[in-house]
């Protein structure tokens, strides 16, 4: 428990550092919001009045504090281009990105864990070698190219889904999840290939350790040795990888959303970057950062639960 508490404190400190960094970075470059809101023809007096009203004359740290507090309250500022609250713009997008990432994560686990165990048990066999080769190629796939190929194969040739025919979750939950399946697969496949490779080598190297011999000496069956003894140990390095992979997937979904025309956080982030709509860019980046940090914290806590050696250190 103390360990979990420590991890949470670390997370909040990191969150503070990241948001401060993002705020400062955009504060410096975004120029004067008052000018950009009023246009260049506005009189200096009007600009000055608006600056005072918006609190732009306060010290930077005060401005950061105000921004962070507002953010926590759900007020993420106003979009320059659309003149509407940023929170309204991105609220509906978060579930889309989140669903897709969670689906991709589940797919990755479902694909990689059985395959990793199977290839480790039959290391050196024909299936193992074939999977090794397939793995090497899939690991080299950029996720968006996997997406393009999936569109071509499953959308065009097998007609399992309509490319570009995104269905909103407000309309139909099953349709929504059905459409997100293939993008999730595109994100999951390259990571799953890496996870298979890692789990395989982890199981193999654990199987050579002394405690495995002890387990056999007590009369355990081979399967019991694997599932009751080896697997938990072998999963420890894999958990770290899965956590990093999930964080990568959240970011990677930005690209996949483009391939499958999905209106999620990534879509809105890209349009705002090209429109120089900084409040939106900031909000989306902070949202993704929070997701990533929460994921990291959860992984750290799981790690501590699985490996008793961690919590003591």
């Amino acid at each position: 428990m103390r360990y979990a508490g420590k991890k949470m404190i670390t997370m909040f400190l990191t969150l503070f550092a990241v948001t401060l960094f993002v705020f400062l970075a955009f504060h410096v470059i975004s120029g004067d919001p008052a000018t950009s809101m009023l246009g260049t023809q506005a009189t200096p007096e009007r600009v000055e009045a608006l600056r005072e009203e918006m609190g732009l004359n306060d010290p930077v740290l005060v401005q950061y504090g105000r921004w962070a507090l507002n953010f926590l309250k759900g007020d993420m500022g106003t979009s320059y281009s659309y003149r509407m609250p940023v929170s309204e713009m991105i609220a509906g997008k978060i579930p889309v990105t989140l669903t897709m990432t969670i689906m991709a994560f589940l797919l990755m686990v479902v694909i990689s864990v059985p395959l990793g165990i199977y290839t480790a048990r039959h290391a050196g066999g024909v299936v193992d070698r074939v999977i090794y080769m397939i793995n090497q190629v899939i690991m080299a796939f950029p996720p968006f190219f996997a997406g393009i190929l999936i569109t071509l194969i499953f959308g065009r040739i097998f007609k399992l889904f309509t490319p570009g025919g995104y269905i909103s979750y407000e309309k139909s939950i099953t349709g929504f999840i059905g459409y997100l399946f293939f993008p999730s697969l595109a994100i999951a496949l390259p990571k799953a290939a890496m996870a298979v490779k890692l789990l395989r080598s982890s199981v193999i190297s654990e199987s050579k350790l002394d405690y495995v011999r002890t387990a056999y000496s007590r009369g355990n069956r081979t399967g019991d040795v694997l599932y009751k003894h080896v697997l938990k140990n072998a999963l420890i390095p894999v958990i770290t990888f899965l956590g990093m992979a999930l964080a990568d997937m959240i970011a990677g979904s930005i690209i996949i959303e483009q391939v499958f025309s999905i209106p999620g956080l990534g879509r809105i982030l890209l349009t705002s970057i090209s429109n120089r709509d900084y409040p939106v860019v900031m909000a989306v980046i902070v949202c993704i950062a929070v997701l990533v940090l929460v994921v990291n914290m959860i992984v750290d806590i799981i790690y501590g639960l699985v490996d008793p050696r961690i919590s003591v250190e």
Partner: protein
Amino acid sequence: MSDKAKNNMIRTKRVKVQSVNRSKKKNYNLIVGGSITGVILLMILIGVFYTPYDPNAMDASAKFAGISMKHLMGCDNFGRDVFSRVLEGSRTTLIVAAGTVFIGTFFGVIIGALTGYYGGVVDEVLMRINDAIFAFPSILLALVFISIFGSGKYHVIIALGIAFIPSFARIVRSEFIKCKNMDYVKSAKLQGAGDFRIMFVHILPNTLTVLLSAIMIGFNNAVLAEAGMSFLGIGVQPPDASLGRMLSEAQSYLFRAPSYALFPGVIIILMVLGFSLLGDGLKDE
């Protein structure tokens, strides 16, 4: 006596067996990875001096031309020769990846060496910051950078390079911590070598194996990251051709001219595959 004779025989047998064994096993990873990488590098090199067509020359009559002897990989929506563009695009991708890895390695080694060797408060602080950045997907960091400073080849190199520093710093730091208490470092110290000499002349060469495999992995990640950013249209900008950008253009014509999308994609895969096999193969040597 006879025991001894037998034992001697066993010993000699063992030595022989090992040498036979070693020469028998072929390092397929190294061979295949080396060949793929070699062919791609050769193609890029040729592309510097000669491309069948001007990569940016448009030919309305050749719009979406299929694969033929005239156009090895067909033509795109403007009638540009895909093969010539792939040659130029892989060069761009290679330059960006190499630049990224260079920045990442250079600063990563310096930061990792200093923090690992000296330790202390500075190490603590820097490593906390490092961990925070490391926990972050590099593409997101690059996006922040690009949205502030704008896109383009050099900005992509700098953005990705910065994003890659922490992973290198981490690896180098842990290697330096491992090495700094070794006997050869102690003896160098006794001989009066300065800290910088110990760090970069004595310790650094001993971290090369680990660093090399990190560079291999980093290079692959850089290729994929560059392709991803250019695909989003916030990476390399026209007139520079880039494999990622070609893919994003090709995506709109996916069903009309699938080959336009397939070739740049396959080249990216081969680049990454070749390098990762090469890395695996070198590890086994």
